[in-house]
Structure formats: structure tokens, C-alpha cells
């Protein structure tokens, strides 16, 4: 069928259309700028570091570990959707072309990352192992070959649910092969490993396809990959599809008990639990806290710490407003309590978590600057800012639109 033949292109297009939206945001955010700085600065430092290395530096071991993992780790993006289980299952046979394209796609993508990392490793390799450019290129080709084998094996493994043993064998042979190539062991040793790979492939891996294709496994893999992407995107922007992710974090549940029992506590408990468990709220709060503290340590001590504290609490504040929208009218709560409670409870929890962050920042300011004055100013001005931001800007926004 013509439709099925085009399906791969359609699905890939859909994903990249969505991805490009996030990539654009990423490009416009400060993240890219920091990345350039990191690359430029890191590059200079890297070159200087290599010049100081002697030839007994264990480059081979390090590269074996890095490329062993890079080649062995073979996630499969198939762009399958759970509804396909209903609609495409009957035409599995006709999907062979679809899956072949998926494998090529994954191969190209993962091959590109190998090229990148191998390019980064070039100065190190040529300085400490061998400056022979031909050998350097041959290794790259061999890495591609063993990646292709990994991709094939992973695809075959999609026919069985339990594949740990195959993974272990595959990983072992992959790492041994890469190690032997890098250490330039005699050719017959490499041939033995290649023979082992061929035997494993013919005796175990190739026959796996006599089993049925395990769609659930494929779907789970696709879902994992998609989530990784969303998690990445979520670091710079709010990804709607990430909202439902939930972590129980039972060790923090005790905190919510501070609010006790009663009508006035309903939404406070609700919002605190949501903050703790839902989406990325706690993650954002914690990450920004950590980065702030790190900057305090790295930057000159003194007033800078105070500014870092304010800026990072502000960043947290602007990210956390979305918490308000987590409430939706469910069966019972919505019918009994007016919106008045909802808004005031949200503002209460919102300002409280910011306040806690500001207190921690102030404590670190005290540690780092060793000045009670600066820490005190950090805290007092910080609290004033939080209060002002919450009860003017956020409150107005909540009142006006009902959503943030």
C-alpha cells in the first residue's frame, strides 16, 4: 500500500517538525551562548592539556571505555505510536520497509555522534597513540562496522522480551573488539573476535527473528527515547507532554502533613504535593538552587552572591507559575470550594517554596562571604522581592486570566 510506504517519511517529518520548534527555542536561549563559550574555552584548555601529556597516558583505555559505551548503547527510535498496536499490527509484514528505514535512520544518527566524538578524540589520539592519519580513519570505519552489527543485533532482540544475556555477550564482544583495534593487537587476535561475532550472530542472534516481533518492547523503547528528548527540551521550556510525569517521592510526603486537616488546607496540600511530585517543579527548583550555589562558589565573593541569589530565585519564580494550572476540576473538590481558596492557597505555596530557596541561598551567602551583613541583606531584599512578585505580578495574572 502506498500509504504504508510513505508512513516513515510522514512520521519522521512530524517528529522533526516538533523537534525544530524546541531546537529554535534552544538556539534563542542563553544555553547556546554558554555552549559556544564552553566549546571555545574548553577547546583551548584541551589543546594545552594534551601538549603536556606523555605517550604513556592511558588513551587507549579511556577511548575503549568511551567508544565501547557509545557503540554498545543502541536505542531504537521507530516513531511508533501506541495506537499503531491497533491499526498497524495487522500489516506488520508490510512494515518491513518502514523498519528498515528506521534502522538506517538510527544508524545515521548514532554514526554521526561517533564521528563527532572521534573527531574530538583526534588530537588526543594523534598526540599520545599514533600520528598516522590512515590508521585514525581506519579505526573510524571499524567503529561504524561494529555499530552496524550492534544495530542489527538490537533489532533482532526486539523479537524477544528477555534479552539481557544477548546484551551482555554483545557488549563484551563490542568492547573487546574496540579495545583490540585501539591497542593494535596482532591481526589474528582481531580475526578471532570477528569470528566470535560471526558465530554469535549466526547461531543466536539471526535466529531470533523466528519469534514474533515484540511490539510492546518497540513501543517502550520509542517512548523512552521520546521522553529523553522531552526532558532535554524541558530544561529550557515548558513541554506540555512532560506535565503528567509523576514521581511519588514518598520521603517528602511528611512535609505536606504540616498543613493538617481542614477545608482551608485542601488546596495547600494539593499544591504542595503537586510541587513535590508532579512534572519537573521540584527538579527545576533544585537545579536552579544548585547552579546558583555553584556560581556563588566560582564567582568573586561578596555582593555577587546576593545578586546570584536574587536572579536565581527570580528564575525559579518565573518557571514555577505553571504550577497553578495543575489544578483541574475533578469530581468533588471543585464543586465545594470556591476559587478564592484555590488562588490564595496557590500563592501561599508558591511564595513558600521560593522563600525556602531564598533562605538556603542566604545561608550559602553567609558561608561563602563570611559576612553576616551581606547574608542579611540577601535574605531581607530577597524576601521583599518574593513577596512583591507573588502578590502583585503573579496574583494579578492569576486573577485576570484564571491561568498563568
Amino acid at each position: 500500500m502506498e500509504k504504508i510506504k510513505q508512513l516513515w517519511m510522514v512520521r519522521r517529518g512530524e517528529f522533526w517538525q516538533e523537534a525544530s520548534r524546541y531546537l529554535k527555542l534552544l538556539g534563542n536561549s542563553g544555553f547556546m551562548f554558554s555552549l559556544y563559550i564552553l566549546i571555545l574555552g574548553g577547546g583551548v584548555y584541551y589543546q594545552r592539556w594534551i601538549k603536556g601529556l606523555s605517550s604513556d597516558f592511558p588513551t587507549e583505555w579511556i577511548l575503549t571505555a568511551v567508544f565501547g559505551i557509545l557503540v554498545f548503547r543502541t536505542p531504537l527510535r521507530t516513531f511508533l505510536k501506541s495506537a499503531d498496536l491497533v491499526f498497524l499490527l495487522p500489516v506488520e509484514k508490510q512494515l518491513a520497509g518502514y523498519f528498515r528505514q528506521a534502522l538506517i535512520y538510527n544508524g545515521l544518527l548514532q554514526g554521526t555522534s561517533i564521528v563527532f566524538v572521534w573527531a574530538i578524540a583526534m588530537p588526543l589520539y594523534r598526540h599520545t597513540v599514533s600520528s598516522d592519519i590512515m590508521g585514525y580513519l581506519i579505526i573510524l570505519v571499524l567503529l561504524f562496522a561494529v555499530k552496524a552489527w550492534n544495530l542489527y543485533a538490537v533489532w533482532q532482540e526486539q523479537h524477544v522480551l528477555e534479552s539481557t544475556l544477548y546484551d551482555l555477550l554483545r557488549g563484551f564482544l563490542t568492547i573487546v573488539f574496540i579495545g583490540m583495534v585501539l591497542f593494535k593487537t596482532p591481526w589474528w587476535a582481531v580475526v578471532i573476535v570477528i569470528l566470535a561475532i560471526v558465530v554469535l550472530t549466526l547461531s543466536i542472534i539471526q535466529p531470533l527473528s523466528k519469534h514474533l516481533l515484540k511490539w510492546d518492547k518497540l513501543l517502550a523503547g520509542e517512548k523512552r527515547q521520546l521522553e529523553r528528548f522531552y526532558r532535554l527540551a524541558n530544561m529550557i521550556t515548558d513541554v506540555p507532554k512532560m506535565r503528567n510525569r509523576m514521581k511519588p517521592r514518598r520521603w517528602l510526603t511528611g512535609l505536606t502533613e504540616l498543613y493538617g486537616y481542614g477545608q482551608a488546607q485542601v488546596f495547600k496540600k494539593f499544591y504542595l504535593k503537586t510541587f513535590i511530585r508532579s512534572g519537573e517543579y521540584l527538579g527545576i527548583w533544585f537545579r536552579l538552587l544548585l547552579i546558583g550555589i555553584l556560581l556563588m562558589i566560582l564567582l568573586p565573593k561578596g555582593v555577587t552572591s546576593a545578586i546570584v541569589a536574587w536572579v536565581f530565585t527570580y528564575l525559579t519564580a518565573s518557571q514555577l507559575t505553571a504550577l497553578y494550572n495543575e489544578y483541574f476540576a475533578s469530581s468533588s473538590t471543585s464543586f465545594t470550594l470556591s476559587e478564592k481558596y484555590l488562588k490564595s492557597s496557590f500563592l501561599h505555596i508558591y511564595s513558600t517554596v521560593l522563600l525556602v530557596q531564598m533562605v538556603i541561598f542566604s545561608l550559602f551567602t553567609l558561608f561563602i562571604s563570611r559576612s553576616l551583613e551581606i547574608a542579611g541583606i540577601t535574605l531581607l531584599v530577597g524576601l521583599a522581592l518574593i513577596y512583591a512578585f507573588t502578590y502583585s505580578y503573579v496574583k494579578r495574572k492569576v486573577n485576570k486570566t484564571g491561568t498563568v
Partner: protein
Amino acid sequence: MGKPILEVEHLSGGYSRKAQVLHDLNFHVNQGELVGLVGLNGAGKSTTIKHILGLLEPTEGVIKIAGQTIQEDADRYRSRIGYIPETPSLYEQLTLSEHLELTAMAYGLKKEVYEKRLPGLLEMFQMTNRLKWFPAHFSKGMKQKVMILSAFLVEPALYVVDEPFVGLDPLAIQALLDLMVEMKEKGSGILMSTHILSTAEQYCDRFILLHQGKIAMQGTMEELRQKVGDPKITLHDLYVAVAKGEEPWKK
């Protein structure tokens, strides 16, 4: 029979003035009475329920609960309703016990009352061991049970129950029916929409047959049978006739 707990007078409405779904509905639910709301998909059952809950505003007509409209006191009006929706909606981030606590707190239930009512209800629906579970691990039926538990925990004056049996296991269906009878005897009114007509015929005191946004017939089973002049007709046959637009009461 007690006083009316729910009164619907000349209700017309829908999602917008242009697309009216309901046309001049008149009915009531008394205290201690279980009334079945019956109609095809799209007959207007859910829209009627949304109007009663105050999620939609009538273009015409009045809805009163215990003699009060929602305009008079929204919080009191709503706290008299226990609602079991057709599609359970739960918060992914809250456990079963937290959902129930949230409901109890929202309805202003005293803590002692909450703790006294809870164990029996949990046991009736085999949910005792699931208190610490999150909805992600619940089946459709279990989610529905959370809705049922929430509503019966509160023991409101009026239950509004929308198609409650779908997805429930037989034990839970029986438990729900037993509870409805118990609450009825305690004086609550219940409005239940359903397609399970044999159960409805067995348990409901009166019926409202909704067709294309209008009440085609209403009354007790006896009254309905008298109207169509067939003393043996079942609710099922009656409903099929109404649904086909045969207007059996004119025969």
C-alpha cells in the same frame, strides 16, 4: 416520600444559546428517592447533569437544591451534591487515600467522621490495600471506585450519578447498589443516569425518559405502564419505543 431535594423547572440550555440541547425540562428528585435518568447517547443526560452541577448556565429556567439556587450560595449549593462522573478523573500525583482525604476536607467533613466512614467503604469495594497507590496503577474500574468512594464518603443530600456501572466488577456493582439503597433510606435523593435498564427498573423509584433534549415520559414504572396502556411492558421495551420516536403514550 420526603420533600423535593432537587427541583428542575423549565430548564432550557446547552453549551451555547445557539446550540440548545435541552428544551423546557421539568422534574424533581425527592428525599429518599432514586430517580433514573434514561436516554440514548446524545439525548441530553450529561448536559442535564452539567446544568445541575452548575458547570453550565441555563438559558432559561431554574434549578434548586434544597430550595436554593446556585446563585444564592454557590458553595452551599455544591457541597450538597455528591457527583460520580461517567469518566473518572483523578490527579496523577495523589494516592487513593489522598484523594479521599482531599474530598473529605473539601466538603468540610470532620476528621473523626472521615476516619469512621472510610474503612467500611474501602472494604465494600476491595480497596483497603490500595490506599497508598497512585492512579497510574489503577484499572478503569478502580478509578471509578475512587469516584464512588469519594461521593459516598461525604453522604451528601443529593447524589448525581452518571453511568456508574461501566467497568465495575460484579461485586462492586452490588456494593454500589446496596449503598444507594442505604443512602436513600437515610434520606438522600439520587439522580442516576444509566443504560443498564434491567438494573434501573429493579432499583429506581421513578424514571425520566429523555429524548432529543425533551422529557418524553416520566413517572413510576406503574405510571409509565398506565400511560402506554400496557401493564406488562418492561422499561427496556418502553425505552426502545421512545428512542425510535414512536411516542407510545399516544397510542
